[in-house]
């Protein structure tokens, strides 16, 4: 029985990691005041670029780097449209998802069914892996999982304990005020949107270079949308995003294990849990905080200096 639980928890961490990367990316973008519904498309672009580059150059690190660059590049379209042109962020994001899905399918056509020679393989961490239970759950993964362990507290520290982090929150909360104290709102928004896009790209590359590891059209299968819901669930806080990613990732793993154990619970019910949890959290927060959601104040509102 403990074996079963350990394997469920270990599977939870792997299943949660791509969602975690994408959610952290989206979190940064939304903290800068931009809604980005293109996560699914960006992840696919990251997945396909990472895969192609690792196959061609036989180097997964290079693939990962390419996925970041590609994710950042494609998201810069969204940045240009929403920051410079002040276009509707929802429309632009949706367009990005459609564009990314199509483009990734087109680019990846020749790479379907090709194996990666050196995917990110499982590398148990010495010493740490020998901790009973915890070692197998947390420290028996590939290196990208370990990086995500570090990334979450670092991002949290950056956001809440440093001056640039404060500015990041400020440009999403009240860009006019941030502008008034001399912050370069436009430049910073560009930087954070593109950075977020790079992380979404890593989320996609995790699927094609470590989790699957192979390329198939549309392989994200809705994980980008779960990441968007997750950011709301996490109330724009990286630590809570981590909890949420594993909660949502665990639902996948748990569903299959329950079936093996003979517990019949409808998988459709399990599949809707991420969204259900998000709604429950929203309701709870609205109740407790008297109707004020902790969303960045200027989220989704284009910033125009002239409008002040």
């Amino acid at each position: 029985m403990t074996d079963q639980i350990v394997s469920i928890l270990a599977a939870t961490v792997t299943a949660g990691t791509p969602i975690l990367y994408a959610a952290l990316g989206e979190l940064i973008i939304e903290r800068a005041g931009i809604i980005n519904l293109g996560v699914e498309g960006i992840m696919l672009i990251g997945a396909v670029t990472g895969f192609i580059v690792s196959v061609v150059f036989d180097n997964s690190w290079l693939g990962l780097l390419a996925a970041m660059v590609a994710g950042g590049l494609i998201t810069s379209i969204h940045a240009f449209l929403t920051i410079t042109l002040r276009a509707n962020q929802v429309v632009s994001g949706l367009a990005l998802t459609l564009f990314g899905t199509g483009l990734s399918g087109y680019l990846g056509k020749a790479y379907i069914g090709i194996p990666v020679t050196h995917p990110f393989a499982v590398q148990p961490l010495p010493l740490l892996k020998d901790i009973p239970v915890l070692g197998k759950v947390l420290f028996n993964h590939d290196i990208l999982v370990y990086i995500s362990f570090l990334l979450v507290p670092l991002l949290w520290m950056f956001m809440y304990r440093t001056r640039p982090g404060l500015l990041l929150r400020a440009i999403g909360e009240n860009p006019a005020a941030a502008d008034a104290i001399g912050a370069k709102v436009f430049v910073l928004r560009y930087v954070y949107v593109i950075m977020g896009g790079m992380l979404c790209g890593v989320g996609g590359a995790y699927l094609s270079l470590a989790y699957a590891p192979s390329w198939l059209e549309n392989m994200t299968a809705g994980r980008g949308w779960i990441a968007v819901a997750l950011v709301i669930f996490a109330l724009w806080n990286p630590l809570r995003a981590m909890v949420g990613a594993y909660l949502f990732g665990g639902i996948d793993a748990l569903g299959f294990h329950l079936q093996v154990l003979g517990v019949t619970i409808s998988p459709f019910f399990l599949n809707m849990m991420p969204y259900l949890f998000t709604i429950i959290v929203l309701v709870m927060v609205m109740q407790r905080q008297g109707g004020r959601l902790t969303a960045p104040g200027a989220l989704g509102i284009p910033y125009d200096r002239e409008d002040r």
Partner: protein
Amino acid sequence: MKNRYLVFLLTLLVATVFVLGGCGSSKDKKPAAESKLKVAFVYVGPVGDAGWSYAHDQGRQYLISKMPDVQTTIIESVPEGADAERVITQLVEQGHKIIFTTSFGYMDPTINVAKKYPNVVFMHCSGYKTAANVGTYFGRIYQSRYLTGIVAGKATKTNVVGYVAAHPIPEVVRGINAFTLGVRSVNPNAKVKVIWTNTWYDPAKEKQAGKTLLDAGADVIAQHQDTPGPQQAAQEKGKLGIGYNTDMSKMAPKAVMTSAVWNWGPYYVKIVDAVKKGTWKSGQYWGGMNDKIVDIAPYGPMVGEDTKKLVDTAKKKLAEGKWDVFTGPVKDQTGKVVVKDGQKMSDADMLKMNWFVEGVEGTIPK
């Protein structure tokens, strides 16, 4: 305002590049002589899915290799429903004389369009509605699954075989049952554990399901899914597997012992030939091993000679046609005899199968 124009121009430029690029790479749209017979295929997924649509496209390529005077067009990833009707109509308007619609959900759209164009032949895969110019076709893949079951039954050491299954519909249930009967024909102590993914196409999820079965003690993983995810899970853990749709050994060479495969090519040649000669007639076709429309893929090196012999014997029996997989006695999960000794289950009963045979561990969600 200047910016808006710039964006518009940029978008236009990008679009043009893609359109031109798209035309350049497409091999099937070359202008052809008027004498060529135009045949169209409508696919539900991308051709590159390595699964269902890919198998149909292999059939199409076989068709053009055998009949060079045929010109084919493919439309990929067509959603089932109203969109399909538009796509099919457009294909007819472009002068295609035979149209293969290769997914269950194209049934009504195919029938609707066929009413308007009585001179065009429509072939719908896996449905049950026909008309004077609409025929249906499908294959008895469960026979292949029975044979692959024999391979799995001989290979398992833990006597637990895992089966990653897509959706709880009769076609999938029938496959699981046939597979289980195959496993237990050579290994009566073995059990088949089933996990439902409720997806046809999610590489990561299907791999996860395969991993879960391996964790639960299975050492051979079979699947009714369109991605090789479960096979890759088996390979990573050093275990074995049975693929589906097409030969999946390319994706997991160390794991895949064989695959239950579709072989549409010869059938497509037969149909196109019949239409050309004017002998084609509407009907419902459900072909089996004897027609070679279903088969098993070449064995991996880990499959022993004695296993191959057992499969060959069963294959012969199937090809003769007197015996079929669901010939009694067949018991259900509770041990009740459902098909009596010596009786052959009718096609109608097979097409609505919603119970598991003895030896399957799992439930069918209702």
